[in-house]
């Protein structure tokens, strides 16, 4: 009788070795995939004159499960003429989630989220909301022919109204700014197996191990664009030495290859070949590390002192019971 480990390993091997043809993005069913995924050679172009990169970060300062204090922020960086012109960590948004306070936190985003929208995983909404507000500001400030880079795909949390995202895309189009989403870890799959890995192997075999390439993958969200074009999803290896290819989202009306050429010019950093360097800087700025959450917790504790929350109430409410059990 095979063990559960053996059974699982065998099933996994079968998926990886003999995937079917069905293309899928886990959790999303609105992608219209290309009939054939074929990698095409890509050449490096010249860098855009103005580049913005936006990333969001999140953390939990206090956690009583039914009640949480979460922190989010969206960082922006700007590179003009190849030099860093702006580094903006972004304001730290501290929100109370649970206890009937979540809707207020969502409303504070000022994105027009439906009042009856579901609240599961709301921290994603809070982070994406701040991030897309920053995307909108960046598009407004970006010079023509510039690029605004977003960490992840161009589809924010499903509760963010499509009208808001469509408005950002329209503004970008009007300003001749290219909006680009780069996803490091994609959930695209073919026959249940990770799609990007298979594409990488296929492209290396077809074009050589040191080739830059791109492949159209799908179209999605026709609701997001004014003219009904929506978004296009491609896979791209943006540096000859890149260890990985990434999913790249572009507005459907953007000519993908020239945009990817320009994008690849930002992907030559020695530390992260194949990934846009400005996004790595935004990622570092947006992080909400443990010490930051601890700081927030300390400030809240000071506030508790002022309003007279007894120590034992705090302790009982926010003690990490898992940790307590691990210690015992």
């Amino acid at each position, binding site marked *: 009788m095979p063990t559960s480990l053996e059974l699982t390993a065998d099933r996994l091997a079968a998926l990886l070795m003999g995937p079917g043809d069905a293309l899928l993005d886990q959790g999303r069913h609105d992608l219209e995939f290309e009939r054939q995924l074929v990698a095409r050679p890509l050449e490096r172009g010249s860098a855009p004159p103005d580049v913005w990169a936006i990333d969001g970060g999140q953390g939990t300062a206090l956690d009583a499960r039914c009640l949480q204090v979460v922190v989010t922020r969206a960082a922006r960086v700007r590179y003009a003429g190849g030099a*860093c012109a702006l580094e903006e960590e972004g304001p730290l948004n501290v929100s109370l989630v649970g206890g009937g306070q979540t809707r207020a936190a969502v409303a504070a985003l000022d994105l027009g989220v439906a009042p009856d929208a579901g609240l599961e995983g709301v921290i994603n909404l809070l982070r994406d909301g701040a991030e897309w507000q920053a995307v909108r500001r960046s598009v407004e400030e970006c010079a023509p022919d510039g690029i605004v880079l977003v960490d992840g795909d161009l589809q924010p949390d499903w509760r963010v109204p499509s009208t808001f995202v469509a408005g950002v895309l329209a503004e970008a189009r009007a300003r001749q700014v290219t909006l680009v989403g780069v996803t490091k870890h994609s959930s695209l799959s073919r026959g249940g197996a990770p799609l990007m890995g298979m594409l990488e192997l296929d492209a290396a075999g077809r074009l050589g191990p040191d080739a830059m390439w791109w492949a159209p993958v799908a179209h999605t969200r026709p609701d997001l664009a004014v003219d009904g074009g929506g978004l296009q999803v491609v896979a791209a290896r943006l*540096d*000859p*030495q890149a260890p990985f290819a990434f999913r790249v989202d572009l507005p459907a009306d953007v000519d993908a290859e020239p945009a990817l050429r320009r994008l690849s010019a930002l992907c*030559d*950093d*020695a*530390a992260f*070949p194949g990934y846009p*360097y400005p996004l790595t800087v935004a990622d*570092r700025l947006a992080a909400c590390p443990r010490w930051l959450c601890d700081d927030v917790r300390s400030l809240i504790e000071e506030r508790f002192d002022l309003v007279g929350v007894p120590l034992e109430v705090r302790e009982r409410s926010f003690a990490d019971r898992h940790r307590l059990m691990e210690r015992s």
Partner: protein
Amino acid sequence: MTEGAHSRGRLFGKNVLEGVFRAAPDEDLFLGEILVAVDEATRRRYLFRVVDVTYGTEHREPGWAERVAGTLLADDLRGDPGAHPLHEQDRRTYRVATCRCLGYLTPDGSSFRKPKSLPTQFSRVLTPEPEDFEFLSSRMGDLPLGNLRSGETVVDFEVGIPGESLASHVGVFATTGMGKSNLMKVLASGVLRRQGRYGLLLIDPHGEYRADLTRHPWAADRLRTYAARRLPGTSALRLSLAELAFDDLRTAHDWTRPQEEGLFELERHYGSTDLRWLLDFAQVEELATFREVDLNGRVALNTLQVLQRRARRIVDLDCVVADPDVSVGGAVVRDLTAGKVVLVDVSGLGSTEEVLVASFLTRKVMDEWSTAFLENPDLHQRLPVVSIALEEAQRVLSASRDKDTNVFPRVAREGRKFKVGLCAITQQPKLLDDELLSQFNTFFVLGLADEKDRNILRSSSKQDISGLGPEIQTLMPGECLVANLAAPFAVPAKIHLYDDLLRATPPPPAAPATAPPNVAALVD
């Protein structure tokens, strides 16, 4: 004085005795470099010595730097260097310098204190200014040796040692080619120019000092040279067996127990306190008969043969004579009493005979100075401090040497009060006796590659050199650390080049004109 100065870094961590500062990725920091952390709050200026420099990066992912290096290396291997620049390297990478705190200057710059407090965190780190070293000027003594060195930079500030410290023994430690001989010539030059205040007895086994020292402008008046060989411009080195002592013999050779017993038997047989009996013993033809008849068979024949071989070797030396009247012992003592540099060129002698000469002369000096100290304090007061310099000092100062009969350990332990010091030159300080080394108050540490050598100095130095291992390891020829009690820390120095020193040395002052006899008589 710091406004507008180029900031070399910002202090961020460690403790009272150590500091760590961050510097730009292209900041050229050197081991041994001396820097100043300026505490704006207290206006103290903390002196730091760089003891290590490492890389730092803003990126916290494990292996980030290795990954970058791998990418760059791969570009090189493909013949495509520059394909992957590290964008904004100056913001993403930096250098971290670990320093030893040497102490701090009070706000008015008048005094220097040992470190007992922390400078304000994030204080600016600057290149020191000449005023920062001013406090050292009164501590550098009257025997200049070189210039202050800060890393690779030679500072326009002369460093040296007080001549008085020669009495508390000097150690010169370096591997071959690091500048020991040049240092000794520079030291001798300093003594020459002090016009009799100090004496230096320099035993030269390789004949490497004579030509250079005689070129010194002050040599005519203040240098005396004795040589075991016939050499131009030197006095003949003559040692009388009547003046050599049994202990000199025991110091010069390694003796087995039976050999020592044999020596005692011979000494008893000849009834002499000096070594004139070596001459008689060396001439004994029938050693077996001599053993049976004169020594009653108390010494094994083969032991006796060894003793006779060694005796013959000594008495056959050109520099060894029987006549006490021609011995140079008295002349050497007189020269040293007059505060001269006495160079004894023993090139051509074997190592054993060289030690014999050194032991004899050292004992003569020690006897003269100690006798004056005990019996004629006024005379002793006038005697100059004298230093006896000996190469390969481990031969006479190692732990295995008999300390009761060997004059050198005695000088190390007692010489200071008599104003007699040793200047021990060695490549292997680890072979010196710990207890004797602890008597040495001044260390000149030039490059030492052996960690054991560095460790022994670390434990005996009068200044903390514990963190300076890498610096000592990387010293270039002529660079050294001077550790003594006069300076508040081990002072990094670049020793003057002797030839440069000669060019810069003025001639000695003209002797005062002597009054004609008739005028002198009137004055009397």
